[in-house]
């Protein structure tokens, strides 16, 4: 017999576990409140839509906003067709076997690679060997590889959730496999695919290590995909590290956090609508 009754142990356990959970949530709350509290003072339309002056010491963050918009778009333009294509192949066009295991293994490994390695690879392959230099294109391609596993996984899950009977009906009407995929499977999997896209955009927005070595950190507006850009995360890192302007650093961090919050909330809302419709 132990010296505390099972009921007592239960009470202690619940207390400890609850406290740990609460601590986790408080940390989350603290980070968001801390950044917003300090950053919202700097935040204004002016801050968002004017050019930085004196390397970001004064002025706004407009070019970094554009960089943060363009880079994920470019990455998605490459990764989305590849990711969805892979998921369609895995679910609709082949049986489970050695090849699918290899593809899944590759996807899993790619998902675990840290962003600094992507940065190194992008730098040596796109920037140096393919002679692109630091530019939007090199950054976008590097990020495309980085988000590919997320797109593949979420799309595959979404496609698997489409009931098999939908496909049977389509086949019985004489539709080919391809027509079934395009007209029946993908439209029904769309909310899941969009969720994957949002997650990927979030990762691109927050990424620094892979971006700084591939897209560079120019503060000019890019004229083409071969120009260097600076994203908000990179800008924030440079401001914070060099301690040039705490105010503008906090302001940029606030914009970052708000974008991530908006992305997450809309993803959550979308997933719920999706689940609600299924049930």
């Amino acid at each position, binding site marked *: 017999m132990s010296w505390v009754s099972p009921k007592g142990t*239960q009470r202690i356990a619940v207390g400890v*576990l609850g406290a740990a959970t609460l*601590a986790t949530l408080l940390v989350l709350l603290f980070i968001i409140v801390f950044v917003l509290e300090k950053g919202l003072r700097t935040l204004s339309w002016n801050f968002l839509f004017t050019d930085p002056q004196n390397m970001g010491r004064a002025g706004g963050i407009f070019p970094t906003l554009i960089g943060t918009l363009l880079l994920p778009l470019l990455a998605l333009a490459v990764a989305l067709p590849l990711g969805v294509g892979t998921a369609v192949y895995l679910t609709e066009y082949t049986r489970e076997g050695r090849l699918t295991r290899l593809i899944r293994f590759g*996807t*899993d490994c790619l998902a675990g690679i840290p*962003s600094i*390695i992507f940065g190194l*690879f992008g730098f040596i392959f796109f920037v140096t060997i393919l002679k692109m230099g630091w530019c939007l294109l090199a950054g976008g391609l590097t990020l495309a590889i980085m988000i590919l596993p997320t797109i593949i996984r979420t799309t595959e899950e979404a496609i698997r959730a489409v009931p098999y009977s939908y496909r049977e009906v389509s086949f019985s009407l004489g539709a080919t496999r391809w027509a079934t995929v395009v007209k029946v499977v993908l439209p029904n999997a769309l909310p899941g695919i969009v969720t994957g896209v949002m997650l990927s955009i979030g990762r691109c927005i927050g990424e620094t*290590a892979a971006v700084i070595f591939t897209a560079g950190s120019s503060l000019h507006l890019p004229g083409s995909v071969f120009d260097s850009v600076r994203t908000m995360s990179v800008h924030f890192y440079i401001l914070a590290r060099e301690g040039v302007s705490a105010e503008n650093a906090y302001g940029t961090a606030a914009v970052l956090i708000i974008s991530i919050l908006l992305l997450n909330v809309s993803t959550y809302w979308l997933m719920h609508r999706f689940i609600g419709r299924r049930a």
Partner: protein
Amino acid sequence: MQARGEKIAQRILLVIALSAISSLILIALFIFKEGTPVMLRMGLRKFLFSSEWDPQAGLFGIYPMIVASLWVTLGAMLIGAPLGIAGAIFLNEFVPKTVLRIVKPAIELLAGIPSVVYGFIGVMVLAPLIRNHLGGPGLSILAAAVILGVMILPTVISISTDAIGAVPNSYREGALALGATRWQAVHMVILKAARSGIIASIILAMGRAIGETMAVIMVAGNTVKLPHSVLDSARTLTATIAFEMASATGRHREALFAIGVVLFVIIMLLNSFATGILRGRLTKS
């Protein structure tokens, strides 16, 4: 006609489906091609276990960085793993399912916060706290471990929650029917059943902690010396790459890629171990 279209579609999709694995091979190929010459020239043992890092003199010993990475990662695990597993148990077993449905996305939000923001909070809030109350420079292994511990929480909680949620309800009911309290059911039955998933979550989180760069570069300080206490500042493997990449050329750059090779190998080992565990669990059930 239709059949031919189908064949073409299948071929094209097959090529597309190979994009992930070919990217992986390409990455491995170029990192190794750039990084291995330095290792071979110096000898692997000298590269890994000598403490002389002086790029100007052509000395590339990464032992202090390996030790720093290990300390920071272990510290992060000591903080993040218990908190995360406790959270996963609590949310799955002791509160209504609706709470889990609200809290889990909130915790996953923690994963979406950019690592530079974590780093910044480490610099502004945590480092001064450590400097004033525990001593040392503040920017230290301890600060990095705490920040990384928080950063890996979502990984641990998310995967552990899935593992605990996958334990059949009949296990729970069986334990409770035998007169066990909820906690007894949890630690005697449910944790045993979900063990492999929880271990996998910890290994994956470890991979994330070792690979994390931007937060660590900001809070761990910048000293390439063997650390003697957790209050010392240190420079991890990832931080060294990020710090020196901008200015490195020639052999120095090759040495940074060699660090990349070491990281790559560590992460691949950890990840294949974790996915092996997760896959094994899936095929069993």
